[in-house]
Every structure is written in C-alpha cells, then in structure tokens.
C-alpha cells in the first residue's frame, strides 16, 4: 500500500515537473565556473590595481623626499600631482576590503574624510601618535595629505618655518605608512591568491560571497553615501560641502571630487563586468554569472538593467558642475537628483542581484521567514 502511494507520488511529481519545467524562466543549471570568476577578479583586477597604487605611492614617496629636501613651489606642485595620481589609483582599490586590508582597516586609514584638522595639528606638534589606532584614522591617508598639501594659505612658508621639520616628519610618516601597508597587502595577496581562488563554496566567508558583499557595501557607503549623499545633505537635511572628497584641493578651484567620483564609478562598472584593470579585455564577472543564472528583470537581463543604471548615474555625475562645491552652493537640487540616480542601483544590487546569486548570509538560524 505505502509503496504504491510513494510510487504514485513520484510518478505524479515527475510528470508534473516535465510539464511545466520548460516554460519556467528561471531555469537554473548551475555549471558556472566560479573559480575562473575569482581568478579573473584577482589576477586581472585586484592585483593590477594594487600594483598600480603601489607605483603611484612610490612616485609620491619620491616627490615627498624631494619636497622634504627642498620645500619650494615646484616640488610642491609635483607632490600635489603625485598625490592626485595616487588618490585616483586608490579609487580602484577601495572596494576590495578583503583579507589583510580588512584586518588592518586599510579603507579607513587611507580614505576617512573629512579629516580631523585638530587631531592632525595635535599629532604634528606632539609627534606622539599611533596611526594604527582608530582615533587617528581621520588624521592620515589621502584626506590628511590633502590638508597638508592644500590646506595652508601659504604652504611654502609652513614647510620652511619654525615648525617645518615637524610638519615634514608627519608628511613623510603618513606617506611611508600608506606605502608599507600597501606593500604588505600586496605580499599577502600574492601568497593567498590560491586559497582565494579556490574558495568557491556558498558560505558567508567564501571569497565570492565576501567579494560581492564588499562590492555592494562599497557602492552603498564608499561611493553613494560618502562621495555624493553626505555632501548633498541626503542624511542631514542641509548640505555639507566640507564633507566632499579632497575638500582642500577643491577649495583651490580644482575639480578633484568629481574626477575621483567618476574614477570610482568606472572602477565599479569594470569590476561588475570583469574588465581588466589595464586594458579592455573582459573575463568572468558578476555580470556573466547573472547572465549564466539567466536573471531577468522585466524582459531584460538583470545585468543589463544594472549596467544601464550605472550608466545613467555616470551621465548624471558628468552633467554636474566640474566643481562639486560650486554645485552644492549654487544648485544642490541637481546633486540630490544625481544621488537618486546613483541610489537607483542599490535595490537592484541588494535585492535582485543578491537574490539571484542567493548568497548565503550565514548569520543565525532561519526557517525562511
């Protein structure tokens, strides 16, 4: 009797599944090569980005040395240029908050803004500080260099005045620390590349899940909130122009914030599509993976919808005043509209992409409700 019932169920369910299976849109056959995705991201994006940052920081180190030896206007200009180049390069690295970078809080050491001028001044005069303490995150990295290079009315006088050696010491220490951290992370990447690539399982700590979660986190916080939302006053009600990235450089009529934001968005788009850091070749990526899973969004593929949304965010940022500070002061409404365009990708990434990848967030027990 029981056997008969079971056979009947089995036959019924199989019959049923054959009937409707073909019409289903989400026909998953997961044979995707996750290792090749991780390999592409590691070898063609993360490592080249880090190596590039390293190069740019080495150039910064040289110009810092030159400026230390002779603090004149020429050397200052070179130093500012190398700072900007390294800052641009940094935009390609910030989203990879993985491994040692995460352990040492690299992201916050390198780019916590606005910087804390009181803390910086105190550190310079006391010469007693621990850059590894989170209290000092806003007194180091690119934003602090921005202040040290662009924040004084007469920098040449500061770096030749009575406090010059203290200022130069601090400058040198910061650059050294950034370079050392970068080197350490590169070394760790080189030795941990293999385990990174082979960690393809679906758990909260596997490479792919971490990478994806970090990417979304970066898009939401590092990019959307920090670069656009906070300065536009999205979270405070009134605009906060002093919170833009590279604030002091902008004050001197440069367009750095916008350039950095665009560079960051390009890096985001390249990561999503698996485009190599230094050329236009394309490897396996989240885009491919979503396509492989056949994730659809109103008839279009989800990856296309995401890319279109990124593109419209890029267009909106391009249309802004080259100087974001002027934009905020003259027409902040346009910045708020731009924020909405950037924001539009967040539900797509956090709901539809995560849902399609069904990334395991192994937090606590769940019974699916």
């Amino acid at each position, binding site marked *: 009797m029981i056997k008969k019932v079971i056979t009947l169920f089995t036959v019924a369910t199989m019959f049923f599944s054959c009937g409707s299976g073909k019409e289903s849109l989400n026909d998953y056959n997961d044979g995707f090569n996750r290792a090749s995705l991780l390999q592409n991201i590691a070898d063609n994006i993360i490592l080249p980005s880090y190596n590039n940052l390293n190069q740019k920081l080495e150039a910064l180190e040289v110009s810092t040395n030159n400026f230390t030896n002779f603090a004149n206007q020429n050397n200052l200009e070179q130093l500012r240029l190398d700072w900007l180049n390294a800052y641009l390069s940094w935009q390609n690295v910030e989203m990879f908050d993985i491994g040692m970078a995460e352990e040492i809080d690299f992201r916050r050491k390198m780019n916590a803004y606005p910087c804390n001028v009181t803390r910086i001044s105190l550190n310079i005069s006391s010469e007693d500080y621990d850059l590894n303490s989170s209290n000092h995150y806003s007194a180091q990295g690119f934003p602090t260099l921005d202040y040290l290079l662009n924040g004084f009315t007469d920098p040449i006088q500061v770096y030749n005045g009575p406090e010059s050696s203290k200022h130069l010491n601090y400058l040198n220490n910061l650059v050294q620390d950034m370079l050392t951290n970068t080197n350490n992370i590169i070394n760790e990447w080189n030795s941990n590349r293999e385990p990174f690539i082979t960690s393809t399982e679906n758990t909260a700590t596997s490479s792919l899940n971490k990478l994806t979660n970090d990417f979304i986190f970066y898009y939401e916080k590092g990019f959307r909130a920090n670069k656009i939302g906070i300065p536009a006053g999205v979270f405070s009600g009134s605009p906060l122009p002093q919170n833009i990235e590279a604030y002091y450089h902008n004050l001197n009529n440069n367009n750095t914030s916008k350039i950095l934001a665009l560079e960051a968005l390009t890096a985001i788009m390249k990561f999503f599509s698996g485009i190599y850091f230094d050329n236009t070749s394309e490897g396996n990526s989240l885009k491919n993976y979503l396509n492989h899973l056949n994730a659809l969004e109103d008839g279009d593929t989800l990856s296309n919808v995401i890319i279109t949304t990124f593109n419209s965010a890029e267009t909106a940022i391009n249309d802004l005043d080259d100087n974001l500070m002027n934009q905020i002061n003259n027409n902040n409404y346009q910045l708020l509209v731009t924020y909405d365009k950037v924001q539009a990708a967040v539900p797509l990434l956090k*709901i539809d992409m*995560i*849902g399609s990848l069904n990334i395991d967030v192994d937090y606590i027990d769940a019974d699916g409700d």
Partner: protein
Amino acid sequence: MTTRVKQYINSYTDSSPLAVFRIGFGLMMLFSIVRFWNKGWIEKIYIEPSFHFKYYGFEWINSIGEGVYILFILCALSACFITLGFKYRPAIITFFLSFTYIELLEKTVYLNHYYFICVLSFLLIFLPLNSSFSLDNFISKTKSISVPRWTIDSIKLMLCIVYIYAGLAKINSDWLIEALPLKIWLPSKYDIPLIGETLMQENWVHFAMSWGGMLYDLLIPFLLLYKRTRTFAFLLVVFFHVFTRVLFPIGVFPYIMIISALIFFDAQFHKWIINILKIIIDPISKKLSHINIQNVKFNSNKKIIWVLTIFFILQLTIPLRHLSYNGNIMWHEQGYRFSWRVMLMEKLGYTTFKIVDKDKNQFFYVQNEDFLTSYQEKQMSFQPDFILEYAHFLGKNFKNQGYDDIAIYADSYVSLNGRRNQRYIDPEIDLLEIKDSFENKKWILPLKK
C-alpha cells in the same frame, strides 16, 4: 457524545511515553540553549542592538541588557530540572516563562520553532510528565504507572497541528506550480558534496521536493498515528529532517521534531528506552532503591481539561486568521507568524526612511545602521509591522532631538520568491499617522503579478 468524551477522559494508558518525552524535551532544550550561548548570539541579538523590535501587544516588555543572561541561566537550569523530573511543575513553569520572555524581547529572531517551544512548554505545564521515572517520585514517594490517555494525546495533537498547518501553507501557486522558493535555494547549494552539483540543479528535483514536502507535512501525522505505518513514518521523519538540516540553516529544529515524533510509538517502545536509561544510571539508582514508592491513580483535573480545550481551539484558529486579509499573505504578511509557515518564501527587501521636517520644509534620509544591526535591518526591510514600528521609533528619536513637526515616509522595495523588486510601502503615507492594529494595512502596496 458526552458519555464518549467522559469515557475517553477516563481511559488510561502507560505513562512511560511522557517520561521519555520529558527527558528528550529537557535535553534538547538544554542543548539548544547552550548552543545559542556558545555561538555568541545572546550578545549579538539581545545586548548589542540599541533598539529592539517588539511583538504587537508586548511593547511593554522591557529590554534588560546583560540581565538576559540570567534568563538564559534560568532556562538552562529549568531544562535540567525537567530532564530529571525534579520539581517538575515549578521547573516547566519557569522554563515557559523565561523562554517566552526571551522570545518577546526581540521580534527580529522570530522562528516558528521557537514559537513551537513556547507553545509546547505551555502545554507541558498541564501534563504530568513526572508521573514516572522522575526524581519527584522519590520525593513524593508516589508514582503513576498509568495516566489518562488525553495527556499523551494532547502532545500528539499539538504535533499534528504543526505538521498539517505547515502542509496546508504549502498549497500555494508559488510552491506547487513554480517550485519556488526551492528553485532559488537548492541550486545555490552547489557546494554540498555529491548532490550539490547534480541533483540540486535539476528542475524535477525542485518540483519533487516541493510536492514531496507538502505531502510529507500533510500525511506524516496520519502515518505516525497508524500503527502499521508508524516505523516507516518515523524513518521518513528522520530522513526528512536530517535532509533539511543539511540543506538549510535551521538549527536544532530538525532534532526537536525527530525526538518529539517518538511520542507516537506505543508504551512498549518507551519502556524499552527507559530500561536502557536505567542500566546507564544504575549506580545512582541503587542508592535510592531503599525508598518505597507507591503507585497511585492519577486523576484528571477538570479545570486542566478546560484549559487545554481552549488552548487547542486557539491553536486551531490562530493559523487561520490570515483568511480575514485579502491578497498574497507572503507579500503582506498579515497573519503570517504563529501559523507554521515554514520555509515558504525567499524575501529580500531594501527600506530607507525619509524624515521630513514640516517646519523648515527640509528632508533627510536615515542611515539604518545608525540604529539597527545588519540582521535587524535585513528583517525590518521586508516586514510591514517592523517597518511601522521602526518608523515610530525614528519619530520619537528625532522628536527628542528637537524636531517638532515631522513626517516619516518609507522608501521600500521588496522582492518575493525571485520576482523583480517592487515598491512595497506607499511612499505618500506618513507612517507616523498610522497606528499598528489588526486592521488591514492599506499602506502596503499590492503585489503585482
């Protein structure tokens, strides 16, 4: 009719199933509490968050900070007492109260199996689980080898209610016609050895498991009740729950269901288990063997029978309350909880809040991580009562900060069972104007498609 009821109430059976159930329940609870503590979840769930979501009607439950550890200790101790059958009645009451209080402290971690434990432990308060093979026997120097049949049957009935309502909930088009959400979940288990890359990817497996799960839930109570299919049914219970344990992060629930299902076996089987236990504890029991224990008749208490009748009427009706709301219950979730709706949906949301200062005609968005942990934010984002409760918390918070006249709007997107994300909460509705109630929540936008 009444004579039949009376006859039933006065019919007796061997009490050993109750003793085995008591020991199994006590040990499972102890294990469950130790596991929860060991994983650091007490800290993470009850202490770290600055704001706690509360159940409707239980907003008065105070968060007690580190004091929650005392509740867990109480819970664990009473579980030990229950296992031993030592001061059983006070122990099970303590367990019920402390466990339920813990659950009421934070709605974010609502799980059907925690609710099951609350309900079951309430039921157990009224059942003589210490009538035999317990330390209480040595204290009172009495035991009852026979107990009324209704005592064991009410545990069986509770289990049947859970299974059958869980099965009924699976009769919906997503589950049966689309094999959702299993079609989303199973392929992502590609990393399970042997079946991950093969069976879990097969369309027919998704359908077979959807239909199989529904039929399992609906039929297993009957297969367990019927003597000739009982052993087979129990093997099925073990297989089903172990399999779900492998696939999903559902903690101790599978084990609790497996142990509980033993209650369906007859006294012979339970006596056999007790005999094994007696051999294990032989050295201790020898010391107590001089105590003379009298067998006394256990009498049914009419009041208890009335309490349990009301209890079961409630258990049968509460899961049906969703019938008074229109629309897809998985979408609006009105009447979703306390209804044995398990593993039914894959739901993801993204919800932020716009605070409008009506005086200054300014607005800003809240960064949820300022107030919520990531798990709270995740849960809040797709459940309407959470969204409303959080909006009111934000309202209070910002009024305390000096904003006098504010309105709060939700910018909310939710995806259900793989559908594209769609707007969830009416963005034109000032949530501060809404009070939570059993009234239909019209500010939830209807599910398209």
